[in-house]
């Protein structure tokens, strides 16, 4: 192609020549049977010394008015060849990749050095509850598991001999005077400790372990978990209590679950209520979980009794407040369908691995 036969050709001849080169190039690209061969063809038809470049050189020799037509033909030919080259290159590259023999790795083998433990379901619900109340503006308070009678009963308006004490079978500890040191039967003593240690406003929840004189079986445990809530501020009403519990139930179970309140009795709150929600399983229709009532009982609550405020030196006329408490294990049993309390305590990894 070095003979420069294009020199002296007419414009029409040059256009025809570009067409011919295009056709020849397309054939050559198609005929290339490997990436190396294709590179040769590319050099021949699209490289610096390609015949199309020579036609471009020859344009100078034709009449000015005809140059554009020749230039256009050359550009079209070049574009067609470039596109065809790219297409062919991809074909050949794919074929070449397929042709390489390789080892097949079995990715269904188990992962190497795999480690992942599991949080206890009580911890999961515990955290979820804390998070809901933190979102509502509460802090998380704590108190000792071994308590004085004063905090567990007396300051909570359970005088000695009060029948309500019989509702909670107490484990006493061999310390101090007889029956003065005990394993707390509820998380409510934390209320008293918080009120003793800080002035209102108080917005706290206190999750924790509590103890009763019970044997571990399908439905009972000598140890279980509760979460307590306490709010003390100016202008707190029973409506605030009901609204707060409703908010927590909605946060945990969804807005289509209803909160229900029934009057009840606890020595340290008045008015006292028992709260529950429409059954999360049957949505109120009645099933075995809710004993066909459509409602699931959750816990107790009420307005802080003025006697409790007086016991900790808060003026019950200036401040009002509410408190609530409910079992965490029970929620775990409900939400995860755990039917036997022993599962919570025996440390079986087959249990842990389900959460």
């Amino acid at each position, binding site marked *: 192609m070095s003979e420069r036969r294009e020199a002296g050709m007419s414009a029409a001849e040059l256009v025809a020549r570009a067409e011919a080169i295009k056709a020849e190039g397309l054939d050559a690209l198609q005929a290339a049977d490997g990436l190396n061969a294709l590179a040769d063809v590319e050099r021949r038809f699209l490289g610096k010394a390609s015949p199309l470049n020579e036609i471009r050189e020859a344009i100078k020799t034709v009449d000015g008015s005809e140059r554009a037509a020749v230039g256009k033909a050359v550009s079209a030919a070049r574009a067609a060849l470039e596109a065809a080259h790219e297409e062919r290159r991809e074909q050949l590259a794919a074929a070449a990749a397929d042709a390489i023999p390789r080892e097949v790795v079995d990715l269904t*083998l*188990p992962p*190497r050095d795999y*480690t992942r*433990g*599991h*949080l*206890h379901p*009580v*911890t999961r619900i515990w955290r979820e509850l804390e998070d809901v109340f*933190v979102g*509502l503006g*509460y*802090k*998380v308070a704590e108190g*000792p*598991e*071994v*308590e*004085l009678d004063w905090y567990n009963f007396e300051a909570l308006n359970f005088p000695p*001999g009060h*029948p*309500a004490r*019989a509702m909670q079978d107490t*484990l*006493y*500890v*061999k310390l*101090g005077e*007889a*029956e003065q*040191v005990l*394993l707390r039967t509820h998380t409510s003593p934390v209320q008293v400790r918080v009120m003793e240690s800080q002035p209102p406003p108080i*917005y706290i929840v206190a999750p924790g*372990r509590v103890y009763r004189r*019970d*044997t*571990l079986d399908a439905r009972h445990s*000598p*140890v279980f978990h509760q979460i307590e809530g306490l709010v003390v*501020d100016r*202008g707190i*009403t*029973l*409506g*605030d209590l*009901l*609204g*707060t519990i409703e908010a927590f139930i909605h946060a945990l179970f969804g807005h289509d679950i209803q909160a229900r309140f*029934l*009057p009840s*009795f606890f020595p340290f709150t*008045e*008015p006292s209520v028992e709260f529950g929600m429409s059954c999360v399983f049957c949505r109120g229709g009645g099933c075995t979980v809710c004993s066909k009532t459509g409602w699931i009982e959750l816990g107790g609550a009420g307005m802080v009794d003025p006697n409790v405020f007086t016991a900790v030196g808060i003026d019950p006329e200036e401040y009002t407040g509410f408190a609530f408490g409910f079992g965490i294990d029970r929620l775990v049993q409900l939400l995860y369908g755990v039917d036997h309390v022993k599962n919570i*305590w*025996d*440390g*079986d*990894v*087959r249990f842990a691995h389900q959460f």
Partner: protein
Amino acid sequence: MRALLSWIREFTPIEAAPADIADALNQLGLEVEAIDEPGRDINGVIVARILDVLPHPDADRIRLADVEFGDGELRVVCGAPNIEPGMVVPFARVGAVLPGDFKIERRKIRGIVSEGMLCSARELGLGDDHSGIVALPPNTPLGSDVREALGLDDVVFELAITPDRPDAMGITGIARELAAHFALPFTVEEHEPAPVVDVSGDSRVVVEATDRCPRFVGLVATVTMGESPAWMQRRLTLAGMRPISNVVDVTNYVMLERCRPLHAFDLGRLAGRGIVVRLARDGEKMTTLDDVERTLTPEDLLICDAERSPQAIAGIMGGAAAEVSNATTEILLESAYFEPFGIAKTAKRLGLRSEASARFERGIDPNGAGTGAARAMELFEQVAAAVPAAGAIDVYPQPTERPRITIRTARVNQLLGTALTDSQVADELRPLGVDVVDGVATAPTFRPDLEREIDLVEEVARRVGLSNITRTIPASPEKIGGLTPQQRDRRTASDVLVGAGYDEVFTLPLLAQADLVAHGDLTTGIVEVANPLRAEESILRPSLLPGLVRAAAHNAAHGLPDVALFEQGTVFGAPAEGDTLPREVHALGALRAGSVRRAPYEPDRGVSVHDAAAPLWALIDELRVAAFEIGPATASHVGFRRGCVAALTIDNGTVVGVIGELDTTPAACAFELDLDALCAATRLDRTFAPVSRFPASTIDLAFVVHTDVLAAELQSVLRATAPNLIEEVRLFDVFRSGTLGAHKVSLAFSMRFRAPDRTLTDDEVGRLRKQAIDAAMHAFPGAELRG
């Protein structure tokens, strides 16, 4: 408390459906645990009259009865001995259903077709009596549903009554609540108490312990013993009490109706025909109605005869000696008010809870003792042909006044978030028996729970209805929620352990003595439960390890020996000097047992203590504890294998825990630490130091040292030689061999040097290498550089 709807209707004309009544009771705080409809299982049993009784041609014991039931006559075969012409009986026709889903079919009995069945009490589910066919009143309409005739169309609400509500332990109290709720009239016939006398008949009452027995009403009457009528037996049975005799049944009936526990003594068997109420002597004994001999204390109150012999434990249970029997002709009825706490204490100590004590414990109405006794006498006259002696003995030295309580409407609204007016508050309270005049409420004595303003606020809330209180959320700008740093750290600790493959477990914090033996150093300063239910749960755990070991054993016993477990929780120790409460430590424990899974890439291998250390170091890293060390054990750790235990220290050597291989079979490795103490250690700030962009130079050095030399010590010596230029010192090989010599170990470290501002020259690296070697040789005489 089992409340019968028919009984409630005697006091208020309630027509609402049972489901609506149950809903109302719940809203009132009288929780409905179950609704029992006793006639639900009886279907198609009608009232019939026996026309004729004929012998069965082929049998002696069974007969044929022709019955009519309004619109027909049929013949049935019947084996009961008590049938006779004219008797009105329950007749289960073919197609009827009896309790137990027993369907009545036409069948041949000894060749004769029976068109149904006449029913005994047991067949109708009315009790155990199967001796004969139930005889209905002769005027019962024939063909009517037997459930109406027997009162089985009744509805029983089983209520859980809270300890503050004695009034709701009686039908009248429940009726009062429902009447108020449904705005219905409520009427209880007031029985005029008999005039007070000192001696009734020839009997006297002496109350020595007036603080424990503030009121004692005694009535005397002659009676004719027998069974109580069917209607009374039916009600008692439905209410859950066993009919006994007309006299006893009346006392129980009035107890259920009026919350008025009564006791009838056989006056003929009371020595001295009188009563003395006194405290028991220490160790005094008496046999109660249930034939159990009870040992008493001076805290127990006794009802004694005039010669001071105990005849009843007051308010709880009568004695066997003066129990009314078929031979009784004269009774002394006790209608007393006992101080509630005293009853509760005795009942609890004796483990003896009766229907009576459940009511006395809550505090019945002292002012209702007279009318209650009068109501009982009315019934005695009706069902036991009683003839009362003139007058009533009434020992009531200090009558209880109705309490007067100031109630401020503003306070009601402040607490409830309502906008009630004075008159609305008064209107809500009136149906409960609370009268409000000029802001002063007078509460009834049958509601001992109403003493303070707040008690009335609660009543208003119940009357308004909790579902009518607007639900709001406190809007204080001062409430900003959040976890404390310590609480966040505790969560972090669990998350790190979970990331390291450990499963969280909860183990019981109550241990057995035997659990501590395996951990011998735990037996001092332990905290014990005074009244454990089981010896296995008598000690408050001083460590998490016994529980974790037990959990691992549980898993191994179920074919899962390879476990990684952790627990966070409180452990207990003896109180600090001057404290009453035990020391509580928030501990973190982790245990790994069995094998570490490496297959299929490498063989599995047994767990080593270094596996247990991995999550610990991860936690130290995440918490950025500044000076944490696993050092030599400082105390004996009996639960661990000797030579494979180390103390965990922070800051200036403060011990916060222990790590090691447990002295258990199969082998397990564990650590336990005081998590709060660890979190309180000096922590590295999370601050940024520029990362050098110059290349690193790495050298390897292996030292042969005595086995007493700890790797961490050598490592820190190397590291200290050029802290600013050493990026990392990593132990990459530990080698022991006889060729090294006895008690020798080769420790090989890889040291990576890098300067912040330049590329280190070969000369510099050479100098750093020499410094490191010299420092090691100097610090550990006898150390050799391994070629």
